[in-house]
């Protein structure tokens, strides 16, 4: 079972790295693919928090925004290389995220979500209010692509780099989930009072999780800004957080494959179906309600549950036959 899922993971990794090369023939599809990969990296981070720790951080996009703005500021104003600025910006965003999130990390469930929503609002307001760093709601345009051995990394090269980071992010997530840390996360998700009672440091684990998740948000934010070449407060508002959450919940939270499926289906829709206009909002709203009410485990979760049922039925019938023999 474990071996099989490992193999699937490696095949996925190879396919994900090959896909940009295939899609490169049509630059528009390649762009949609690149955006989907960034969403996928974000969704993986969101999944770690929502799927494994059980908290729904709606300030996710705000944290990504801190990194996005920071990387632009460091490369533009201080002339840093992107590859130096990215880790610094990411860690800065993660620290800021943890500092902002600290008050809410003691809270549970919906209450945490609500507070993260308010924090996201504060961040969006701050992006507008401190134009020295963010240029207000005008945004910053013409952000240069990352430097690359004297040249610039753009086009297919940049897409491959994003794909690489996404794949590494997913593999890392799979590894964390199987580690004792991941086991603690699941225990907290299932019952945090019990987790505390059997000696798990719940708040500390949540802070660690939040830090890791903010790293995902940050790396995604850095790549977002150089890939689009433009950042503005609206690129990191609460709707973005909610969309990423939807990718995870729709695909199936708490699994590695779920968010991949959810993102692959949902992320390209706004780009491919631009003429749908506001129907997209309505559609995504309906999806949210349907998923919450009818498919609490998401697509992949529902599929897993069905497979488990059929397997159980098969072994049961096998047992019945054995006993007859």
């Amino acid at each position, binding site marked *: 079972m474990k071996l099989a899922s490992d193999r699937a993971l490696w095949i996925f990794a190879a396919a994900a790295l090959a896909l940009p090369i295939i899609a490169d023939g*049509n630059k528009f599809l390649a762009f949609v693919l690149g955006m989907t990969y960034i969403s996928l990296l974000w969704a993986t981070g969101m999944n770690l928090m929502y799927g494994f720790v059980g908290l729904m951080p709606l300030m996710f996009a705000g944290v990504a925004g801190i990194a996005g703005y920071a990387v632009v500021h460091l490369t533009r104003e201080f002339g840093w290389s992107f590859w130096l600025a990215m880790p610094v910006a990411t860690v800065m965003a993660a620290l800021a995220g943890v500092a902002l999130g600290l008050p809410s990390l003691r809270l549970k469930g919906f209450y945490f979500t609500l507070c993260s929503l308010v924090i996201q609002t504060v961040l969006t307001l701050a992006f507008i209010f401190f*134009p020295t760093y963010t*240029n*207000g709601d005008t*945004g910053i345009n*013409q952000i240069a692509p990352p430097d690359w051995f004297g040249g610039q990394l753009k086009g297919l090269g940049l897409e491959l780099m994003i794909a690489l980071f996404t794949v590494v992010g997913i593999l890392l997530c799979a590894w964390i989930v199987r580690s004792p840390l991941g086991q603690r996360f699941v225990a907290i998700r299932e019952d945090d009072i019990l987790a505390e009672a059997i000696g798990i440091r719940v708040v500390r684990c949540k802070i660690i999780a939040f830090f890791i998740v903010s790293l995902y948000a940050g790396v995604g934010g850095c790549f977002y800004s150089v890939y689009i*070449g433009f950042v503005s407060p609206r690129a990191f508002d609460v709707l973005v957080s909610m969309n990423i959450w939807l990718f995870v919940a729709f695909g199936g939270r708490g699994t590695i494959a779920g968010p991949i*499926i959810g993102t692959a289906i949902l992320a*390209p829709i706004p780009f491919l179906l631009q*003429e749908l206009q506001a129907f997209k909002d309505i559609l995504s709203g309906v999806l949210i309600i349907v998923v919450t009410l009818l498919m609490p485990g998401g697509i992949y979760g529902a599929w897993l549950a069905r497979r488990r049922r059929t397997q159980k039925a098969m072994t049961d019938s096998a047992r019945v036959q054995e006993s007859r023999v």
Partner: protein
Amino acid sequence: MNIKLKTCASAIALAAAALCAAPAAAQSPRPIKIGFVTELTGPWTFFGTSCVAGLKFATDEINKAGGVLGRPLEFIVTDNQTKSDQALAASRNLDINDKVLALSGPTSSDVALAMYGYAEQQKIPFLVPVAAFPQLTKPGTRYTFRIEPDAAGWGYAMAKYIEQVRPGAKVALMHSDAALMRAIMAGFRYQAPRSKLNIVADIMFPQGSSDATVQAAQVRAATPDYVIVSGAGAFDNVITNQLLDLGIKPQQIIHPFGITTQVFGWGQRSVGSIYGTFFDVGLDSLTPDGKDFIARFDAANNRPPSYVENYCYVTPYIFKEAIEAAGTADDREKLRNAISALNTKERTSGVPIVFDKNGARKEYMYFQEIVSVNGKRNYQSKQRFYIEWDPEVIPVYDLVK
């Protein structure tokens, strides 16, 4: 795993199907396609939809009269959701899959700036109808052309107006924290001391504000001669009403810009106040074409057009003239050079259209006084001031980043 591949495959298939469907409609003569990426949803919906209304008018006229170079002019209107990544994706899609000749459409500055990057990089002529951001035509710009004067210049123009009507006036500023308002006020603050004006209050409201009574009282206590009011969306009305409630006279209120629906919103009690504009039913210099446009727009939409609709009405004509001057509709570089060399006038008001080397226009502004407002149907205004200036009379690119 399999599911992932399948979904990717089906997503690509879906996209391919969508793309294949488009060329099937092509007939002879082949239309000249221009991508029009605008705000049909999201916070700027109002501007995007108004703009498309003006655009449709001109496109129909041009195509009825035989099109351009014998080919119909087709604007592919695409929604950008008032989001920069969507605008960028749409531009890319129009460029790569629809092979459009040029891009146009955005009415909000941040979206326009995102498209600006793409147009400059891919060398696509990009005509911006209603985005007033100076950075769209910063030095070195080659493919982007801005029809609307830049917002910092509006502030400059207001200072010039006040300098003329009341030298040494005391002025209070009240505005929302939005890119456009910041740019206008930056221009005004720069020019005010040079025009010997005295700023006695300067209040900025965060987005999402709902009340301005206290600030209005503060402004009133500072006894200004003029109050410049520019709130985002409906908040503009709130500030105006609360100033009037507290006894500021309409004659003391100046709005940096006004469009038809805003004038309706200010209503009868604002009669006597001043607003800046670039096209208005009350202009002295309306051409017969302009009056005709106003009458027909009014008949179709139950209200007179404002400068937003006018600029979008003018846009297809600019393309028409430039394509005809270039002599071809298939060469982006030639079109870019033709737009750059254009020397023409707005059909509706006779204001010259000439772009400088960065794509900025020789700039101008009207200041109108509200004479009467008849509900939500029509209004009258009187031209009080007209000014033209060179875009770089103030350091716009330093004032607004």
